[in-house]
């Protein structure tokens, strides 16, 4: 019986073929936690009473409430900082060197194709973009993995997304994944892998990160792309260790197969309060906005900064709108400065921030008041996600978000460029 790409990676780790539904325990190559989830994991880890399994294979990235927004969050980060020092954790990232975890780990080469990465953050599935099996877990899982280097998994079934065609202008990975979630729903891939194959040539690595990042918004265990030259180009300057490339068997069994023609996808907007409430931009009329957020682990990468720059250049943010831009890592921030993007953002009237997850989860740096509306390139638009329970979040690509910032209502990039 043929195996899917995810099943191939898991089988290699376990040392024998594994099939959907099987419960397995597998070695992990990377264990991740942040300032929200790691303190709970550290508390649980200490109950086990052993040393960490490998100082190099744990990443601690305080990114949610940093730079610390209050005393309580400072205390949470301090738990993580002290733990990192006490146990000699190599990959601890302090403010000033850090980035949003799911942009940072691939950028630093800490996750690679064919590996298993688990993280106490639901968007850990992002690394599927580079053909890594990565999935979100909880703090107790993180604690046990820090102690043993292992985690338990139920081998997932998979849905195959067979892609063809090329993306149209102004359409990006964000539109692809919003389109897919609109089609299958927020529990459409529950407990399953989303495997992306076919003609991937028009999807940049940044597009793939965005798509894999939001697999969890369809309920998936992981989203994963086949390895190709685009993956290799991204990996080759970052990998400092051997990695292995896997491919799904020809006769792999999928629970469903979707044929997706990328050329038919238009810019998408997800309406409140679920990522599945998607409409294409030409169906969206007269939605005035108060705030625009461009950034996060979903869309704070270099391409996102570039498209934002191209749309904002020489223009002004609408006087009734607050535009907040968050490059996802220090490297992306610096590169954006060198390229002149940041200067244009500021001239246009945007506020530009050091990397933080703050606004995405309604933590800090962009909280919405009652009755306010935001369009955001983040990944969730649940009730109260970005602030007051009577505020609204619309999800879209950086192109749509930047165009909306100029117009003051949700707009297509075509309206401003």
């Amino acid at each position: 019986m043929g195996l899917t790409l995810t099943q191939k990676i898991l089988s290699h780790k376990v040392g024998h073929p594994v099939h959907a539904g099987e419960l397995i325990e597998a070695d992990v190559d990377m264990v991740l936690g942040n300032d929200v989830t790691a303190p709970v994991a550290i508390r649980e880890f200490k109950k086990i009473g052993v040393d960490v399994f490998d100082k190099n294979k744990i990443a601690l990235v305080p990114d949610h409430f940093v730079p610390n927004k209050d005393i309580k969050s400072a205390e949470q980060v301090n738990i993580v900082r002290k733990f990192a020092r006490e146990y000699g954790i190599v990959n601890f990232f302090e403010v000033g060197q850090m980035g949003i975890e799911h942009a940072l780990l691939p950028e630093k080469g800490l996750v690679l194709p064919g590996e298993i990465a688990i993280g106490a953050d639901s968007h850990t599935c992002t690394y599927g973009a580079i053909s890594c099996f990565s999935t979100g877990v909880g703090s107790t899982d993180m604690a046990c993995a820090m102690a043993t280097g292992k985690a338990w998994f139920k081998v997932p079934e998979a849905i195959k997304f067979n892609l063809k065609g090329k993306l149209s202008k102004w359409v990006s990975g964000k539109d692809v994944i919003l389109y897919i979630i609109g089609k299958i729903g927020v529990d459409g891939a529950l407990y399953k892998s989303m495997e992306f194959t076919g003609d991937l040539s028009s999807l940049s690595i940044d597009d793939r990160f965005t798509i894999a990042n939001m697999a969890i918004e369809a309920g998936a265990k992981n989203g994963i792309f086949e390895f190709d030259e685009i993956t290799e180009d991204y990996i080759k300057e970052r990998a400092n260790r051997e990695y292995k490339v896997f491919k799904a068997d020809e006769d792999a069994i999928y629970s469903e197969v979707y044929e997706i023609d990328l050329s038919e996808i238009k810019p998408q907007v997800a309406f409140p309060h679920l990522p599945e409430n998607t409409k294409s931009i030409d169906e969206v009329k007269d939605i005035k906005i108060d705030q625009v957020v461009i950034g996060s682990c979903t869309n704070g990468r270099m391409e996102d900064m570039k498209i934002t720059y191209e749309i904002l250049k020489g223009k002004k943010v609408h006087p009734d709108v607050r535009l907040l831009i968050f490059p996802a890592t220090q490297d992306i921030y610096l590169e954006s400065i060198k390229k002149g993007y940041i200067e244009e953002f500021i001239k246009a009237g945007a506020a530009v921030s050091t990397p933080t997850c703050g606004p995405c989860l309604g933590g800090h740096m962009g909280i919405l008041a009652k009755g306010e509306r935001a369009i955001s390139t983040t990944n969730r638009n649940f009730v109260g996600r970005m602030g007051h329970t009577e505020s609204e979040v619309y999800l879209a690509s950086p192109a749509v978000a930047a165009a909306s910032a100029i117009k003051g209502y949700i707009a297509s990039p075509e309206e401003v460029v």
Partner: protein
Amino acid sequence: MEGKAIKYGDNVDTDVIIPARFLNTSDPKELALHCMEDIDKNFKNKVNKGDIMVAGYNFGCGSSREHAPLAIKESGISCVIAKSFARIFYRNSINIGLPILECSDAVDAIEEGDLISIDTESGSIKNITKGEIYKSQPFPDFIKEIINNGGLINYVKGKVK
């Protein structure tokens, strides 16, 4: 375990179970003070020790925050029954020892306030108010082993020592 049912709909996400604005702490008691507050302001007042939470599809979708099942457990809820669970919420609940059961029949039949009794070993759900019994799938052996050890930490502790 026995208690009255507190019922919600589909896609109850972790942001409404425990909003992010309270995640600058990991103290279960503090988290429980705000449990469910963005979906049900009255939850804190109506929940009693042993009560059963009942919900539709995709319960616990969203964040990996273990704070969500911790807040539910600390509130006194003894078991969550849903039509389906989001996967990270599912494993977090198992890992911290909060029993959860998938059973569409039970969810459809149970009304808010019904008195419910549950046998997690057999997966049997008894509606004492209505005099009905619904069957859910019992846990696989591996999961039972984690639960019988009192959660994943104890299970792992037993293996590393």
